[in-house]
């Protein structure tokens, strides 16, 4: 227990100290009247806004955004893995798809979001669509690149043992690609929160993005910051969740690298 605590402090102690210092200075500057509170609210007033709106935030907006993120990320995960693996196995698919993938990332989101609203209305699916568009890309690319990277010598060795394509894929390529895929997932899950938030800005009736935008219209900076705080907290927790999975999966995979 003691060793664990020691490791934790050596890993994160400095970060926690800096955060505490930063928040303290922030609070002090605002309290001292350096910055007007509608520009930059003090941490304590953000906390108060969070408590004041807690029923609305935790009862309505947080769950709404969370579902958008979860569904958007889930579809991105399934679609990303399928397309990444598919492109790896079929050259033609890769040739057709890769340009589209790149285009999908260069089209300005703001420009196509009206189309999503047109198609899906103000339902959850317009937000899921925006999330998917952002979160899908890192998974496809990391899966495809991970499967392609290296391992040629291992592949030849397995082929001399009589292994077919599927066997090589299973025994060598997937384990070798996993670190890359998981990096992609970590990026993607954070992007999912961004995607859902942007989706809500463009048209929604609930969610933390919607809430923060409405509050910003009312010049209630403390409430805006409270929503931002919850959004980043959600991103951090989801990120840590993927990292936990990563640590379990890569316990032995990380050897020899």
């Amino acid at each position, binding site marked *: 227990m003691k060793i664990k605590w020691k490791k934790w402090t050596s890993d994160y102690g400095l970060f926690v100290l800096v955060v505490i210092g930063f928040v303290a200075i922030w609070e002090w500057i605002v309290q001292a009247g350096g910055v007007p509170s509608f520009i930059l609210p003090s941490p304590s007033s953000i906390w108060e806004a969070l408590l004041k709106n807690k029923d609305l935030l935790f009862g309505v907006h947080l769950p709404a955004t969370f579902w958008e993120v979860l569904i958007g990320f889930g579809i991105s995960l399934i679609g990303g893995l399928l397309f990444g693996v598919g492109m790896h196995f079929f050259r033609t698919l890769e040739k057709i798809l890769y340009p589209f993938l790149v285009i999908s990332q260069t089209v300005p989101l703001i420009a196509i979001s009206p189309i999503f609203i047109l198609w899906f209305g103000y339902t959850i699916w317009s937000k899921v669509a925006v999330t998917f568009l952002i979160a899908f890309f890192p998974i496809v690319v990391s899966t495809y690149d991970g499967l392609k990277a290296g391992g040629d010598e291992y592949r*030849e*060795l397995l082929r001399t*043992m009589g292994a077919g394509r599927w066997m090589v894929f299973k025994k060598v390529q997937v384990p070798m690609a996993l670190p890359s895929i998981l990096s992609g997932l970590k990026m993607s899950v954070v992007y999912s929160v961004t995607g859902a938030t942007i989706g809500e800005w463009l048209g929604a009736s609930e969610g933390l993005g919607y809430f923060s935008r409405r509050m910003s219209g009312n010049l209630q900076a403390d409430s805006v910051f409270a929503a931002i705080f919850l959004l980043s907290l959600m991103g951090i927790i989801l990120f840590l969740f993927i990292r936990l999975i990563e640590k379990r999966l890569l316990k032995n995979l990380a050897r*020899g690298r």
Partner: protein
Amino acid sequence: MRGAIGLFSSSMLAINELTYAFQGTAPIFENINLRVAPGEFVSVIGPSGSGKSTLFKLITGLLAPDKGEIGINGEISGERLGKVGYMPQKDLLLPWRTVLDNVMLPLEVEGKKGNLAEIHEWFSRFGLKGYENAFPDELSGGMRQRAAFLRTIMTGKELLLLDEPFGALDAMTKRNMHTWLLGLWEDLQKTVLFITHDLEEAILLSDRIYLLGDAHVREWKVNLPRPRNSDQIYQPEFIELRKELERLIHHEN
């Protein structure tokens, strides 16, 4: 060419009039012939770039010859992948698998269940006892090489192709491996084709040596009785053989 057929079918490995070139370059092999009889230990030596590893890739079936035939155990045509035990230059142990799981890989690929008691017996003979659940990065260079060799044995194939298995080892470890391999091979009853650039090693281990160079091969018999041991390299006969082989190589160039 008809007369060669009898020889062809009794060979563990028979290469007939093989020609191979990488795209757009001069051929590295031109009409080469090569035979390995069952139970023989044959070395292939040659300067780097003479195509030693390419020869192995052709035999394993990873590459297809431009011209000529390669027969394994009397089978001339058809798929060669999965017919020989191939040990590449690097040990290529999968770093995320335990030594046991690495060694079992050929069985997994063929969808077979190994006899665990038998495999543990192999681990002792290969000096790997107690390391079944260790990971490759926990082994020394010599042990990794032995593990890779054991994996090759586990393919259960009659013909083993060993591509410079001791090339990366230090001199001391290498000598120990020679002693160990000589002892092992005596009762292993396998046919071995062995790539090396170490003349001493080639003479000590082999029945015959093929010299590769200028797209051709030359055969040289090692007149040294068996059983052998690694101390023989200091005997005058051995040194004489070595000189003879060196002369042959220089003459060729």
